[in-house]
């Protein structure tokens, strides 16, 4: 008995592939990179130890809030840091924190002893690159815009947009739970 013909590109021969710990190694590197970048941001002492600790623990327990804590802590540290908004530390943290988010999401689903076909990771990689391109385009546009006090209308529009965004996020999170 022969199997029905299937399009070759839709038939996947299982066997060789990347080990399941690859996303976790990327997560570890991204977390350490994000923590290391804070060294140039003036973060020292217990706060830095705390962030490095989370960067180390995160690949072991990717399905826990550790990634959220790390991203939040790094974002607060960067925001509180001195210097212009588009300084190198910020520009480095943009892809690293995004990478932490994506690899933590994938690591939470993929067991350590899994075998990953590289083609399976191509759509997330492509989306990551597109999102980063859009973000850096926004950063470029914002660098070109004049700085100074906004008009009341812009402030009000921003406030309404922010409120709408928050309400939308709450609705989505609560409804999908």
């Amino acid at each position, binding site marked *: 008995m022969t199997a029905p013909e299937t399009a070759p590109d839709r038939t996947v021969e299982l066997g060789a592939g990347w080990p399941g710990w690859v996303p976790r190694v990327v997560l570890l590197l991204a977390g350490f990179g994000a923590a290391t970048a804070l060294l140039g941001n003036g973060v020292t002492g217990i706060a830095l130890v705390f962030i490095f600790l989370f960067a180390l623990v995160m690949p072991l327990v990717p399905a826990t809030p550790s*990634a959220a804590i790390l991203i*939040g802590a790094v974002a607060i540290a960067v925001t509180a840091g001195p210097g212009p908004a588009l300084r190198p530390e910020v520009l480095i943290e943009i892809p690293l924190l995004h990478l932490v988010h994506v690899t933590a999401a994938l690591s939470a689903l993929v067991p350590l002893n899994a075998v990953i076909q590289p083609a*399976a990771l191509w759509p997330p990689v492509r989306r*990551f690159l597109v999102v980063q391109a859009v*973000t850096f385009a926004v950063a470029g546009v914002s660098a070109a815009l004049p700085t100074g006090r906004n008009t009341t209308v812009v402030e009000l529009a921003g406030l309404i947009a922010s409120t709408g965004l928050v309400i939308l996020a709450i609705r989505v999170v609560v409804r999908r739970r």
Partner: protein
Amino acid sequence: MTSPRQRLKSWQDQRSASARQTWRATDALRRGLVLGVAMVVGGALLHRLAPVLLGAPLLVSSVLALLRPLGGRPTIRARPLPRTVESGQRARLLVDVEPGDGAELVAIRLPSPDRSGIGPVHVVPATARVLVTRMHWDAWGEHADLRPDHLVAGPDGLWAYGPVVGDEARRAVLPVVRPLPPGLLPPRAAGLVGAHRSRRPGDGIELRNIRAYQPGDRLRGVDWRATLRSGSRAESGADVLNTLFVRERHAEADADVIIAMDTRVDVDVDLAGWAQGLPGFVRPGGSLATSVDAATALAASYLRQGDRVGFVDLGRPQFGLRPGAGRRQLLRLRHRLLVCARNAGWAPRPVLRAEQVPPGAVVVVLSPFLDDAVVQQTMLAARRGSLVLAVDVLPGPLLPDPDSRWGSVVAKVISGEHDIRLAALRGRGVPVVSWVDGAEVVALLRRAAAPGRRPVGRR
């Protein structure tokens, strides 16, 4: 009657199981939304660009995941394979995948060509519709070799369907057959054909005797040369004049082999593990695995030369198999060995009754001989007149339990008692051999086939 706590647990399990059977947002999606919105809104309120730029990728990727339409129910279907396979056999497994709308990757547990068992989780793109893997079965027994647990993920792993536990497929892997060099068996003239020379006169090929013609002898059996020689002796004075001489030949007969296997214990060299549960179907390198190897090898060898082979499970007599011949008997026997190994366990009294052993049959007892009862049954079978061969399948030397201060003493006591039992068997004329590759057993049976000789076991 279930307690309220158990009912609550059951309700929770059902609820979480039903939640897994639909598309659901993962914690990562909530993380992206909450952090993304918090950073963007916070940055906007504080008039700081840095948090906006840090939160924008999280928010954008989460929104993209939210905008992706997800639907359908992912289905995984493995195309069927035979329920019974040979040890060492390989097969190609095709799995049809229907991941549903909006899926991006599929994590599915499938056998791997380089590993045994149900295999690792494979992460494949959701564009795949047919997954192909190769299965191989090395260890005989009954195993679960396929359980396609799966999880289907949406964009960036922010949505998930599952994990869904797949339907387990179990397969019977027949013991491998390693034929021995065929040896002669003591014949039993139950059949008219066979490969063994009988002591009785018959229509075989081998010359038995030359004797004077008797009424009933066939004329074609007359040995004219011997007759003429006897005539010349007659001229010299003997009184055998005009007597015809006939050539008498040995009959050819088949033989019965009864393989009696002790399935009550399955032990290996590690004494510490004797009381623990089995890690698999049988202990690798243990007494039961060796017994099954020996039983299939002996059965295959003697069935191949036309003999009849029967089987007796000393622990569970209901699993016995009457003597039979041919390839089907070998297949029946291998299936029966699987059943016996699956049901193996301690029984206080081994059973080897007279009606289980045809008269004149050779009985091969495969046992580690760890108790007196099996020794008594073996002696009893020998006393009934059968040629009994005891094959010791206790692996050795035994390793004492390192965690017990009495470990080495226990090992010595067990080994000593075992040696005494084997010596008792030899003392009653039952040859005892250890199963290495079967050559010793074949040599013993060959000696036993020689007229007027009894086999002598290894001492």
